[in-house]
Each structure stands twice: as structure tokens, then as C-alpha cells.
């Protein structure tokens, strides 16, 4: 094990090796390898229940691994403290919080990783403003998040992740429940981050407007990686790499891979 703090250029930003995790008694990740190098945009695809969300939550330490290794920016997860380098967009929940909050308050929470004792200085407020501008939500800064549409809410969550000016963006289904116009705004924000050199790992149900940005796709099925390479082309289920051409007469437990590319 190396303990040097310096990061060699070829060191992957995310390195997950042989990850094993279970939720309750159900194994969800069964030996997942995932490496994301600096500047790459990697999409995690797979059917519902394939483990793709669990995989990203494991990467940010929110699902304990019962086996395997995780390192972020070349640091073993146990010793990783540089959280401001990561911008995380969790899966959007519709559960409203009990007290209203403005868009600016929610986005400012994303800046905490860069502050000392939670004091927002001028530079921090400017960063919050820039993050709001990136997702085109400046006009809503003082609006209550509870009054926003699903797509606008998702833009706020992405602004919150961008407020810390992270090098690595990790997003769990950022396009879920977002209409096309909002998807375009989100795709633009991600495109700008990528152009500025950000590394991106995102869980997607379908490639959508982000497709041209994606360098590599990792497809999971039943907690295993079944494809790691060029993104599948959205022409049909059979064109999907990793699709193993199971037909109705094949073993009944081999459920066909559904990435939702057609839906």
C-alpha cells in the first residue's frame, strides 16, 4: 500500500476494486471494478436493481463495502478527507422537508466543504452565485425550493454540488423526472464542467442529451459489471454491448438487460 500523498498523473480519480456490498441480506454489488480517470465522463447504466445506484453511493462512502477496496484521488477511502474536491448529486427525493428553504440556502450548503466553521465569506457567496448561474437559476435564488418544478429542483441540487467548485462530479440519476427543456439546461451545465476539466461519474437510466459527452459506459447487471467500454448506441436493446441475446426460451433466471434506452 502506498502512503505518498502525491498523486501520479495516471492515478485514477475513482478506483473501486472488487467491491462487494449488500443491503440487508441481499447482495447488491458482487465484485464490481470501476476506475474513472481524470477528465473522463463515465456513465453507469443498468436495469433497476442492477446495483448502479448502490455503486455510486459506495463510491461516496454511503454504502459500506463488505469486500474490495475504494480509493479516491489516490487516497484509500479510510484516510480520504478532501471532500471539497467532490460534488455529489444524490437521487432526488420528493420528500419535502418540514421547514421551507430558499434556493440560495440549499445551494450554500454545498459550499460548506470549502468554509471554515461554516462562515460564508464574500468569495463563497460569489461561488454560490456562479453555481446558480451555471444552472440558470439566479432568478430563483430567493424562491422557496418547495415551490419549484421537478426539473428546477434538480438544477438546484446540481448547483449545490457545483458550489464547492469540485474536480469530480458524482450524480445519481440527474435526469430522472426532468423534462426535456430542463435536461438541456443540465446537460449544458455538465458540458461546461467537463470543458473546464472536471471528471464526471453519473448514473443514468438513458443517455439522453448527455450522450455526446460520455466517454465510457459501465453497464451493471445483478451487481456485476457486464460491459465497460464505448457507450451503447441508442438504436435498440440488441445493439447494447453486454446484451447477451437471451430469448424467451433461454434460462428463465436470465432476465434481459433493460437500461431503459428505449423507454
Amino acid at each position, binding site marked *: 500500500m502506498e502512503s505518498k500523498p502525491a498523486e501520479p498523473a495516471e492515478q485514477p480519480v475513482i478506483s473501486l476494486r472488487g467491491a462487494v456490498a449488500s443491503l440487508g441480506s441481499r447482495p447488491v454489488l458482487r465484485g464490481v471494478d470501476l476506475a474513472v480517470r481524470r477528465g473522463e465522463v463515465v456513465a453507469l447504466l443498468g436495469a433497476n436493481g442492477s446495483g448502479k445506484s448502490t455503486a455510486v453511493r459506495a463510491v461516496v462512502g*454511503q454504502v459500506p463495502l463488505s469486500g474490495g477496496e475504494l480509493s479516491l484521488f489516490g487516497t484509500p477511502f479510510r484516510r480520504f478527507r478532501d*471532500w*471539497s474536491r467532490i460534488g455529489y448529486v444524490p437521487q432526488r427525493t420528493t420528500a419535502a*422537508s418540514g*421547514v421551507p*428553504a430558499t434556493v*440560495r440556502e440549499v445551494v450554500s450548503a454545498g459550499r460548506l466543504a470549502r*468554509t471554515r466553521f461554516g462562515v460564508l465569506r464574500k468569495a463563497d457567496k460569489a461561488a454560490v452565485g456562479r453555481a446558480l448561474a451555471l444552472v440558470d437559476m439566479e432568478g430563483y435564488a430567493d424562491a422557496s425550493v418547495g*415551490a419549484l418544478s421537478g426539473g428546477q429542483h434538480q438544477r438546484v441540487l446540481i448547483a449545490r454540488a457545483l458550489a464547492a467548485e469540485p474536480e469530480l462530479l458524482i450524480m445519481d440519476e440527474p435526469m430522472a423526472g426532468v423534462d426535456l427543456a430542463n435536461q438541456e439546461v443540465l446537460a449544458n451545465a455538465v458540458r461546461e464542467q467537463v470543458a473546464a476539466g472536471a471528471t464526471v461519474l453519473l448514473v443514468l437510466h438513458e443517455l439522453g442529451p448527455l450522450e455526446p459527452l460520455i466517454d465510457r459506459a459501465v453497464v451493471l447487471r445483478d451487481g456485476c459489471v457486464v460491459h465497460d467500454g464505448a457507450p451503447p448506441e441508442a438504436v435498440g436493446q440488441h445493439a447494447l454491448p453486454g446484451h447477451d441475446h437471451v430469448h424467451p426460451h433461454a434460462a428463465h433466471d436470465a432476465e434481459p438487460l433493460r437500461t431503459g434506452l428505449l423507454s
Partner: protein
Amino acid sequence: MDLLNYAFMQRALLAAVLVGLTAPAIGTYLVQRRQAVMGDGIGHVALTGVALGFLLNASPVWLATLVAVLGAVGMELIRSRGRTSGDIALAMLFYGGLAGGVMIINLAPGGSTSNLTSYLFGSITTVSAEDITAVVVLAAFVLAVTLGLRRQLFAVCQDEEFARVTGLPVRLLNLLLAVTAAVTVTVAMRIVGLLLVSAMMVIPVAAAQRVTRGFAATLAVAMGIGVLVSLSGTVATYYIDAPSGATIVLLAIAVFTVLTALSAPLARRRAEAARAAEEVCTRDDVKV
């Protein structure tokens, strides 16, 4: 204002201001993460501490603080495990605290359940000089936490998973929040009473939300309402000789009702504006 000539009344009014500030301050965070009844639970548990004070001939306020803190930490540990049986475990803690208090007070020499009444419902005449020192110290702690760490606590209560990924010490902040809630219960115990403490944590916040859109604004307005009702309730109690807790809570409910009535037309107008905006958008979408 002849009531200011009495030392007990000066103490009661000071305690009332501190209750009005602290209970809604911690309550805003509890309501935010839908833990509004936590204050109620801690209040039940604190009763065991009060009774222990009688039994051991020690200060009921400090012992209540100690037992309430232990209970709140227990509740937080149960919550953070997220077990489905957590509900039952919490219920055990609540009722155990209440039953323990009643049992212990009857074991105390010369003690009976009636000793507990002023702690259960609040009483302005019972705030002793010794109590007020404890209340001031504890209230200062509550305000330091709820105002000084408001951004961190907001982040944790808003989205715990995101807060962990920003590197915040979430477990520590959760425990601190629980301890602060417990301390607030004992701050409010003398004036509002253990059974009505939770009302002061929840109702001013609910009332404030009727007219606010943001978290900081809700916190500030809730604290304002808290001070208003606890001060006026304490003064009213001086004249009508009722338990201060009941007066204060009924006043808080009155404020909530008035703000709800006032904000209804406002909310309706906002909803109509939103609907109108939506219609315009749909028409635009069709054109594209």
C-alpha cells in the same frame, strides 16, 4: 408595571424570554427533519430526572438536564440506526421516563405526584434564584449551538447523505442537536412545563412558516413569535393565576391561527400566479 417589583416575577420574565428564544430555535431544526415529537419524548424522560432530584435532595433542573441528555442521545442512536422497530423503542423510552418519574417521586421522602404538577405544566412562581442561573447558562448553550452552527445543522437536517459527502461530522452534529434539544427542554421546564415543552418547539415554527419562504427567515420569525407569546403569557399568568404553560401554548396557537388566516389569501394569490405562469408555458411549448 408593578409586576416588575417582584423578584420572582423578574426571574419568571427572564426565563420566559429565554424559553421564547430557545425552544423555537431548536424546534426549527427538529421540524425540518420531521422530528417534531422529539421534544415531547425528551420531556417525558426528563420527568425521571426531576423526581431523582427530589429523591436525592439535589437540584431537579440539573438532574433533569442530565437524564434528558441521556434520553435524547438514546433517541438519536435509535433514529440513526433507522430500524423499523425504532418506533417501539422510542415509545418505551417515553413511557419508561414518565412512569419512572412518577415511581421515583413517590419513593422520595414526603414526595407525591402533586410535586410534579408545576414541572408538568409550568408555573411562574416556582422559578428560584438557583434555577434562573441554570436556565441562563443552559439557554446560552442552546443559542450558541442553534445560531452559531446554523449552516451545518441546516445542511444535516436538510439532506443528511449530502452533508456526509461534504465531509461534515454528521454523527457529531446529530448528537449535538439531540443534546441541545434536551437542554432546551430543561430550560423551558419551569415556565412551560414538561408536557407542553414540545408545543413551544413546534407551534411558533409552524406559525412562522405561514409567512416565510426560507429557513433563516423561519428561524428568526419563530423566535420572535416565541418571545412574544412566552412573555405575554407569563404576564397574563400574573393577573389570571393560571398555569403559565397552558396560557403560553394557547397564545401560540392563537398566533398560528391568525397567521394562517392572514396568509391564506396570499397563498391563494401565489398559487393562481403559478398556475397562470404554467398556462403560458404550455402554450409556448406547443408552438415550439
